[in-house]
């Protein structure tokens, strides 16, 4: 493998129902920064059916070039045709870096593609940088420059590791949604659009979609919320989330939850914060009746201000909270809502 042949930072521009996913724009923001350091281009790989119209949005968010793979087989995500599309693009255009969102799609597509093109893949990265590998020179070992250094949590967020892929190309990473920053869109920006179709012939690996069942949800994406009022097992019931909703409303925020709440069927999965849910970093995060298992903390600890309310004084959530109040959430939360309303009225 001639590593020098591989150029460009490529981003898998995930779309669902012909709408660009937020993670695609976040990756373009990061990709642009990495490409500037490497003095190369940022390329979005847009895969789907009748998706060409989305290319301008990708340009506005930083793509220099958009490779569009458009085919009826790609209308709804399935592992095989998408893996064939992305790995064909990699084999044809030879990127040095490929970034994929660590979503329910990307965490399936990424490993399949990395195995197909025989390279490494680092999962769920939270930091991406360009640097040397090894980090410090080691006598007798070549130190390679301009490597992608990928940092990720492991052990449920208890440890962090920085990983490189020095001898294989492309260097591939999946990246946790909500961590990288989008750029401010450049209105009217245009990218060089390349249409590429490697041909799709169904084989044994094509699965059949019998049904698509969408969860009905009219709430906003918790990853975009400035204020999150998050409830855990301690809230006690689906009905009792009403007091959290009232608090969220007065602050212009929205309700999220811990895994236990989803497991109990009190709230849908798309409101779940944590290792197996979403990573959030609002300006204010209320953890109400949440014990603070490490898997939950991993998804919210970057919040600007964390307020915890819990009757258990020893709950680990107090180890990450800026302001912790030990007490009965059923009394404190409604009173807090009223006090905030009063404070607002004073203004």
């Amino acid at each position: 493998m001639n590593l020098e042949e591989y150029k460009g930072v490529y981003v898998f521009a995930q779309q669902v129902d012909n709408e660009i996913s937020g993670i695609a724009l976040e990756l373009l923001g990061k990709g642009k920064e990495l490409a500037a350091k490497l003095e190369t281009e940022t390329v979005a790989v847009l895969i789907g059916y009748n998706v060409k119209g989305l290319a301008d949005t990708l340009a506005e968010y930083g793509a220099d070039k958009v490779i569009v793979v458009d085919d009826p087989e790609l209308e709804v995500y399935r592992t095989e045709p998408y893996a064939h599309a992305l790995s064909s693009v990699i084999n044809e255009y030879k990127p040095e870096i490929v970034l994929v969102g660590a979503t329910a799609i990307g965490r399936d597509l990424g490993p399949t593609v990395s195995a197909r093109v025989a390279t490494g893949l680092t999962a769920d990265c939270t930091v991406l940088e360009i640097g040397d590998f090894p980090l410090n020179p080691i006598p007798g070992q070549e130190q390679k420059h301009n490597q992608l250094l990928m940092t990720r949590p492991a052990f449920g967020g208890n440890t962090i590791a920085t990983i490189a892929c020095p001898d294989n190309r492309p260097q591939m990473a999946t990246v946790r949604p909500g961590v990288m920053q989008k750029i401010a869109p450049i209105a009217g920006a245009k990218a060089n659009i390349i249409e590429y179709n490697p041909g799709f012939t169904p084989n044994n690996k094509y699965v059949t979609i019998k049904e698509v069942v969408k969860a009905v949800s009219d709430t906003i994406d918790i990853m975009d919320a400035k204020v999150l009022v998050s409830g855990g097992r301690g809230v006690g019931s689906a009905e009792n989330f009403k007091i959290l909703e009232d608090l969220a409303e007065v602050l212009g925020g929205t309700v999220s939850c811990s895994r236990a709440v989803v497991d109990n069927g009190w709230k849908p999965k798309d409101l779940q914060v944590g290792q197996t849910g979403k990573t959030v970093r609002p300006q204010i995060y209320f953890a109400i009746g949440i014990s603070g298992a490490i898997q939950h903390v991993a998804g919210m600890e970057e919040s600007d201000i964390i307020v915890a309310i819990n009757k258990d004084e020893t709950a680990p959530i107090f180890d990450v909270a800026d302001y912790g109040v030990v007490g009965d959430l059923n009394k404190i939360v409604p009173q807090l809502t009223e006090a905030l309303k009063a404070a607002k009225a004073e203004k």
Partner: protein
Amino acid sequence: MKIVVCIKQVPDTKGGVKFNPDGTLDRGAMLAIMNPDDKAGLEAALRLKDEYGAEVTVLTMGLPKAADVLREAIAMGADKGILVTDRVLGGADTWATSTTIAGALRNIDYDLIITGRQAIDGDTAQVGPQIAEHLGIPVISYAQDLKIDGDKVVVQRQYDDRYHVLEAKMPCLVTALSELNVPRYMTPGGIFDACAAEITTWGRADLKDVEDCNLGLKGSPTKIAKASDKVRKGAGEKIVPDSPEDGVAYIIGKFKEKHII
């Protein structure tokens, strides 16, 4: 029907993570358990066995002590255990691990391979799909429901805001979510069987169609540049108010201080 369930022995991060006095993770003090998603995958296999009749083989890769999770699986109802262990396989990343397991699976007849979605130590969710890719069979990840219909599997595949009902012809590979089911306990008879069961042990020489350059630390494309226990944000303030009113006043005071209100 022949089902192979790939399982992993992991340190238990859920039952309380143990730290050393210096704040680093005390791995030695943590229990070794069967990875939860894998256990759900095993339970799914055992339910298919109960319903349709199936031979369930459990396979793991790890140190010799990883045989413990195979015995636990047999005590739950699995028929056979295979341990893949060899010094040259150590330090494997997901590419080298999936290459190794695929090399072992090529020795076995299977209709269905089940893995957990991800292990709680690495959290990568990569090894399942990569095994399928090496074997050239379809993969369905993130299964929240699994049924059999003739020579096909019918799976509810979870996404963030929806699920798809997917059908794949066997042989295929499915990765299981913990939400799939509640795993059964070991039975006294099963524990007796497990003690008596012979665990098949395979080493490097038993892997089929695998090149040395793709195994272990040397065969891993990803290399660790740096690893450290995470420095967490320290605790802030915590009060135990005399009344809910005092607690509310405290929060309001802090919000005013920070110009939030």
